[in-house]
């Protein structure tokens, strides 16, 4: 377990910024109430076996007691660095992203299932969409009852969505909570 170096930090933050925008500040600066310490600590990012974890400081201090090979996971896994060196967000980051999302898309109940099987979001399945989305922005996908389902990258701006035909792609799938079942082993 080690802290991220500069390059890795920018990679992670860029990815997170896509989804959270200015709320990235909340992710980094937010006070944590974990652990028995009376004073609230902060959260920090730690790299462990190519995976990036979002951990409270108190937990980091305790985790130093565990050997590197024995430490399987700590805190919340946010993403992983691939062999090629690029950073991917994983589905576990959904909680953080959903709480700080800048752009949101709500799915109709009928198309929820399709998304949870790993398909992209089509215009026809769109229940609601935040205004002012630009192509390439990170979008968090919700069900109509505000349960976060996953996230992806927007393909069209909100304006364009209006004229789109029902089969047009709106959000490219990146991760969904169905992965907890489908890819249980990899996570």
């Amino acid at each position, binding site marked *: 377990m080690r802290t991220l170096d500069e390059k890795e930090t920018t990679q992670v933050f860029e990815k997170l910024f896509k989804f959270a925008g200015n*709320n990235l500040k*909340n992710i980094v600066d*937010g006070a944590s*109430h974990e652990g028995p310490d009376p004073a609230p600590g902060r959260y920090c990012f730690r790299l462990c076996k190519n995976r990036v974890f979002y951990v409270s400081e108190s937990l980091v201090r305790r985790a130093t007691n565990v050997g590197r090979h024995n430490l399987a996971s700590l805190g919340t896994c946010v993403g992983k660095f691939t062999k090629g060196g690029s950073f991917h967000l994983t589905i576990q980051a959904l*909680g*953080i992203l959903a*709480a*700080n999302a*800048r752009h*949101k898309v*709500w799915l109709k109940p009928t198309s929820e299932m399709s998304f949870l099987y790993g398909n992209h979001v089509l215009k026809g399945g*769109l*229940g*609601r*969409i*935040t*205004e*002012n989305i630009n192509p390439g922005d990170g979008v968090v996908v919700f069900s*109509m009852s*505000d349960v976060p389902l996953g996230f992806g990258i927007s393909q069209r701006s*909100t*304006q364009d*969505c*209006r*004229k789109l035909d029902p089969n047009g792609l709106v959000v490219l799938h990146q991760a969904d909570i169905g992965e907890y079942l489908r890819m249980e082993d990899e996570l």
Partner: protein
Amino acid sequence: MGKQKRVILPPDLPPEVSEEAIEVSDEDLQFVNENLDYAGFVSRLDTHSITKHVTRVADLKEDALEALYEKRLKKKKALQKDEEEEEQPGIQVGRLDALPVKTLDGQLYYRPLSKASKPTEDGGEGEEHAQETDKGLVKLNKAERRAKLKKSKKEAKKQAKELPPDEVKDNPQTAVLAELKEDITAEESFETKKCKLAELGIALLADPESNIKLLKEMLQMCNDHNHAIVKLGLLSLLAVFKDIIPGYRIRLPTEKELEMKVSKDVKKMRYYESTLLSAYKAYLQKLMVLEKVSLYQHAVVRCICTLLDAVPHFNYRESLVEVVVRNISSSDEVIRKLCCDTIKSLFTNEGKHSGEVTGAAIRLIANYVKAHNCQMHPDSIQVLMSLSFDEDLHRSEAPDKDKKVKKKHYKKGNRLEESSHPQPNDRKKSRQEMMSKMREEVAADYKAASFDPDIMERRRMQSETLSAVFEIYFRILKHTMHSIVPRPNGDTGTTHVTEAHPLLGPCLDGLGKFSHLIDLDYIGDLMNYLKKLACSGGKSDSSGKCVTVSERLRCCIIAFKVMRNNLDALNVDLQDFFVQLYNLILEYRPGRDRGEVLAEALKMMLCNDRQHDMQKAAAFIKRLATFSLCFESAESMAALVTLKHLLQKNIKCRVLLENDPGGGSVSGSVAKYQPYALDPNQSGALASVLWELNLLTKHYHPTISTMASGVANLSIAPTQTYLSRLSPQQAFLDLSLERESFSLKINVMKSSNKRKRASEGAATSSVDRILEEAGSLDEGEVKKKLSEHYMLLHDIKENERLRSELDRTTRALSLYDEYKKQKKQKRGGKNVS
């Protein structure tokens, strides 16, 4: 100048002619014989002057005679000058005259002033005089002229050449008139002129066809130096024109048409129309000139507005519209109101002018806004609200398209059939073609003949108008933006505060009204602008803000309206505007900002929207509850209604009603309520408790306290799921209407028991209402009764106070007595011991 000279010339020239060689043509004789009235007048004048003159001539030599002539001429000139100076400075038009007078002496100032008041008049007047002379001639010659008209057209054209003989008669007349007028006092002349105006007007109204020439006489009266007369003249002309202007637009006949032979009636009609038109033109020119003179401005603007209102279809309406638009944001209240009303009526009564003037007026307004850099009176933009766009036009177009498509299909089908059956001979084909050709021709003829305005034409006009309207609105928005944006850099708050945005309010209103007509392509930009405007006050509200809270609220409302009206298919979540509203609620101040706007925003954004995030809804619920604690009853009622609505819709948010801070599993990532968070999603409101409701149940206003207790009981009685029909706006209005009468209520309630009020709020309120009604019926009596009542209360209180004082003193006395007794006893005891 030439014309003016000619005007002055006639009076002095003819006498010489008349004395030396009077060629009385047959026609003239005939005319005199026919019109004895004229003849009598003329003959009387002639004898009057001629006998005098002849008797003298008889015993005078040639030189003396000439001297006499000169003398007479001089006298006449002097007379004329006097007349001109006294009666009609306008008639004495000659700039030539004006110049020498200027150089003379102290009188200098009088003339230029009277002239300066009508500086540009001269040009128009010159024409008028030309027309006047024409008219004088026409008047005298009318019967004769008619006779001639029968003979030949050309002579009718050469009316001008008949000038001399007329002037023969004219001249003595004016001389005598001048003499007469000298005697008449100013007052009398005023009276007579008034009467004359009235007579002329009545004559015109009675029979405009034959008396049309009187218009020019009336016009001439408007050149009077007495401004009361001028005003009267203008207004009476207005009345006349309003009445006699026909319901169509006059097109003057072309030369070719003039040459054609036409019937007598047509000729008469043409003459009538051309005279009317020229008089109208002269009148308008006069109005335009006088419009710049502050003395006449009110009357002139009234004239112009009334004309435009009454006859927007008639010729020269463009200049009318131009003047009205120029005055639309006048600083003068009366003028502005007149102009705005006129424009409004133009917009609402499009049938009068088939919509053409609307487009012209709006384009002019757009230019005006551009020229004035959006610094105008809000009324001038408010007028656009009365525009109406016919949506049926768009709809009717769509079926047309369908038809065309069908037709095409049909044709295709035909062609296919034809191709499949090439046998049918050419004759049939040619016949079909002929038939279709005929049909087309008939359709074209029908179209030309029918008075139905072309739908395509109207569509085009409407779209032009619409684009001009939106140009105005977008320009205002942009201007407001630009005036806001540089502010943080310059940091000169004081200078910018003065630069208000008078047009923003009506502009937003208009956008809201026409939001359904905005092109989808513009919506993106529009939303961006609105967002920036809505955010603009937030950063720099400490240094005096450009855009007030209510205007920012309006921006939010408009954004929602635009979205709702255009995007039924796609449900867009306007996150940024919710953030704005969340913060604006805190900035709201009851006295400063308009409560109706807030109520409307609450209704628009929170009640009408279908779904909300749980976090967001909770944040708004919490904030509204806080808000309703610290504002007046109307605002807090609106907030409470919204709150109830939100709670009923978002069942999960009812954890706020539980007495358990932390919110449990639903509280989300933020574990603690942060009241200062800017983003409703980050506030963690689900972790809080709505303790405010408990305080609100003790609100002094019975309606609010019952409402608050109702909301507080929502979680206990979840079966009660009916959605209240009351909207925040309605609630706000109800209570703000009640506000005035409520002060009285409070007084009454003070006397009643507190507990009773809480439990029997409804009963007391009904009693109050009765009281109120009584009060409205007889306020004085109620006042008396109330004062009696309070006197009584006061007495009772005084009584109580006195009693308690008495009690205290008696107690103190008794204590003292006791003390004394005890002391005595002790002493006694001591003594004893």
